[in-house]
């Protein structure tokens, strides 16, 4: 089977680039690669790849800058590579329009999973608004304002419902704390992340079978929350 998708790898370390190229090619992706920011931007413009993997620590320019510049004229899905402990960078990249991130050092399975998810989101963008989301027994119908788990209706407060639908509309993607607060409480609220966490704890107690091991909404420590992929 041939994966038609073309992926651009922007990474200055040659060994990591080789490793990623090998992994991607053996999964039948077409691969473009570069080690610097300047050519990265021109390749995105000329080849229009389906996905960009961007290392934030490039020698010639700040990764965040490249990202925001790219976002001015391209909606190509971007997965950034960052290290553990640099959660601020990940949050900044997500706020700058990155679709996902992967933490160095990463394994092959993780890399491929993130790529598949990001490619799917790239395609979904053109499908228009959905009103019903479902996955693993959780069903959210935004038209009829109904949330069910395994057929059982769940009663959520107004804020809880807003949080759940926000996550559903972005299922599979990490949403940063700040983004969620802005979307749920409005841009001028001075709500802190504590209130978000309290609401999240309540949501989990209502929808998760085991709130200590959530399967629907997972925590990305230091960054935000992610809803599982919903169909």
């Amino acid at each position: 089977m041939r994966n038609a998708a073309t992926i651009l790898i922007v990474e200055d370390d040659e060994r990591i680039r080789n490793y990623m190229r090998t992994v991607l090619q053996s999964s039948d992706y077409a691969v473009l690669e570069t080690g610097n920011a300047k050519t990265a931007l021109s390749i995105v413009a000329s080849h229009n790849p389906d996905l960009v993997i961007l290392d934030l620590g490039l020698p010639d320019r700040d990764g965040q800058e490249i990202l925001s510049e790219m976002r001015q004229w391209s909606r190509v899905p971007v997965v950034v590579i960052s290290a553990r402990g640099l959660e601020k960078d990940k949050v900044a990249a997500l706020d700058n329009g990155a679709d996902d991130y992967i933490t160095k050092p990463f394994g092959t399975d993780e890399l491929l999973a993130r790529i598949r998810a990001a490619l799917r989101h790239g395609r979904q963008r053109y499908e228009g608004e959905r009103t019903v989301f479902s996955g693993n027994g959780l069903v959210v119908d935004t038209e009829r304002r109904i949330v069910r788990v395994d057929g059982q209706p769940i009663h959520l407060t107004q804020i809880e419902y807003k949080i759940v639908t926000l996550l559903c509309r972005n299922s599979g993607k990490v949403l940063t704390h700040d983004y969620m607060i802005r979307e749920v409480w409005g841009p001028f609220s001075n709500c802190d992340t504590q209130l978000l966490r309290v609401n999240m704890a309540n949501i989990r107690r209502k929808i998760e079978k085991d709130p200590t091991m959530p399967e629907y909404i997972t925590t990305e420590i230091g960054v935000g929350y992610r809803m599982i992929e919903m169909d």
Partner: protein
Amino acid sequence: MPRRQLGKRRERMLLFSWRDTGVTALILAGAAMLCFLMRFMGDGENYVSMVLLFAVALVSRMTSGYFYGVAAAVAGVFGVNYAFTRPYMAFCFSLTGYPLTFVTMFAVAILISGMTAQLKRQVRQNYSSRLEEMRANLLRAVSHDLRTPLTSISGAASVLSRNLGKIDENRQRALLNEISGDAEWLIRMVENLLSITRINAERASVKKVPEAAEEIVSEAVRKYRKRFDAPSAEIAMPGELIMAPMDAILIEQVITNLLENAALHAAGATWVRVTVSKRGCEAVFEVEDNGAGIEPDKLPGLFEASASSYNDSAANSRNMGIGLSVCRTIISAHGGTLTAENAPGGGARFRFTLPTEEGDTHAQCGNHTHR
């Protein structure tokens, strides 16, 4: 108590703080009330300066820098003169012994403020030097321990590249597994070392944000389950949400290390359980297994990362001392405590606490604090 406040309070002589202003006002008001009370009950005048002196000493001890102590002394000196000595409600500077009161109060304020500042400095220096010592020890232990997996990785890789296809496939697979196993061990070791760099050495503190304990525990256990099939990890969480200010990445590292410790060193363990509870002003995290427990003679030095403890039988002791000493450093930097013991039913139990309130306000629930 001063240890918790270390990170926040810079040591300046004249530093304005609402907390200190409040403390000073409260103590002085209390002293004044006491004086009035004594005066109405008759012959209070003799004790007035003692009460004020005590108040000044208290203020100096409970605030930082010299400012509030000296301010309290000035207020005390004039207050005594104005309100509590004849003539009442008027200043009179010709009282006998007045200069003496004046000088005494100032001397007490300056002396105790100085001592308080010094005490705080010392605690901090102690911690910094302990952190420094641990860094040095870690470095020694690591350089000692890094060579083993590196030798094995480069050895296995060179055997493979020279004999590719010549040795049988099972052997090749085994060598590849060794390479990835050792590489993963190195990755975890480096993550641990990088954790230490997140701690501000000078102030021995971390950047804390209120986090939900359940989220951190869930993620640590999720990652543990990906790596280890046995012993199986369980979580025991109360119904209520427990929040504590912390550096989430570091606390996740602590839980990960304790879980991994159980997986690698708890002989015969079939489960390892993470329990979170709230006691007074502390969030209490426990990681308990049903293995063979910790040998009693190893308990005292369990959290020390000394290179010498790595001399005993190679692979088994790998990472243990380093992981645990990193845990202790992280927990101390959070103002908590980390202890290890053997549970009554056998098996090891590690317990760490995190204050659930930020420094200053923790006194409010200090009464309930357990142990």
